[in-house]
């Protein structure tokens, strides 16, 4: 894959497809097996969050480069209700659903860069990057 791909998140089967596609690109970027597993797990968490809290969304999967390394970047976006209190949403165990509250906080620990923007009533945009070592 040379160009970024964008996949829809509209059902549980999409979460599986996203995991598979992220795995393929992670191998292509040269991430270690552990790092592949981490970014695929983060993708699964974020995609499920979009599904559960926003009714769906989309994920963009792309290969990025800085001066020295290649990396995999995921951009997960939705047009859902947004997150009113981002700091609180990033606390382990905080959830407004019926999960464990580890999706956001846990995903943040699994990646190298994590950016979350959200506007209540408009949606949420989460960008995560894992760099090859």
């Amino acid at each position, binding site marked *: 894959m040379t160009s970024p791909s964008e996949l829809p998140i509209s059902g549980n089967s999409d979460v*599986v497809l996203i995991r598979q596609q992220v795995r393929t690109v992670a191998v292509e970027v040269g991430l270690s097996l552990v790092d592949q597993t981490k970014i695929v797990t983060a993708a699964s968490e974020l995609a499920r969050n979009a599904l559960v809290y926003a009714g769906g969304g989309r994920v963009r999967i792309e290969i990025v480069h800085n001066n020295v390394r290649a990396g995999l970047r995921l951009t997960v976006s939705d047009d859902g209700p947004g997150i009113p209190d981002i700091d609180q949403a990033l606390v382990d165990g905080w959830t407004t659903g019926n999960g464990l509250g580890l999706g956001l906080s846990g995903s943040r620990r699994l990646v190298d860069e994590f950016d979350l923007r959200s506007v209540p009533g408009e949606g949420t945009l989460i960008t995560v990057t894992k760099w090859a070592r």
Partner: protein
Amino acid sequence: MDRVPVLKLGDLLIVSIQIDLQDQSVLALQEDLADKVVETGARGVIIDITAVEIVDSFIGRMLSTIASITRMLDAETIVVGMRPAVAITLVELGLSLGGVRTALNLEKGVALLNHLDGARAVTAR
């Protein structure tokens, strides 16, 4: 949706997950296992995740739930075959799978169940 088959071997139930798990498949497995434990009177359940490439918080929580449900139905659940990368990722994610017994492989899982059963027989005496 793919359904994960539950195999009966003596008084054990064995589940080997060979598919990329959808949330519905995991929920169905939970119900199938609860039914099968009662139906067969199994004393142990072994879930083999050798082929599972990732365990996220949903799948992890379901493994804990399955272990609690079968324990309530008098059967112990052992999760076997977790890949090292999956273990590392789970811990970093913040999931410790509390209450879930693990063994490195199927053979050790069966040995652990036999051991637990022996201990239980002694206590019951």
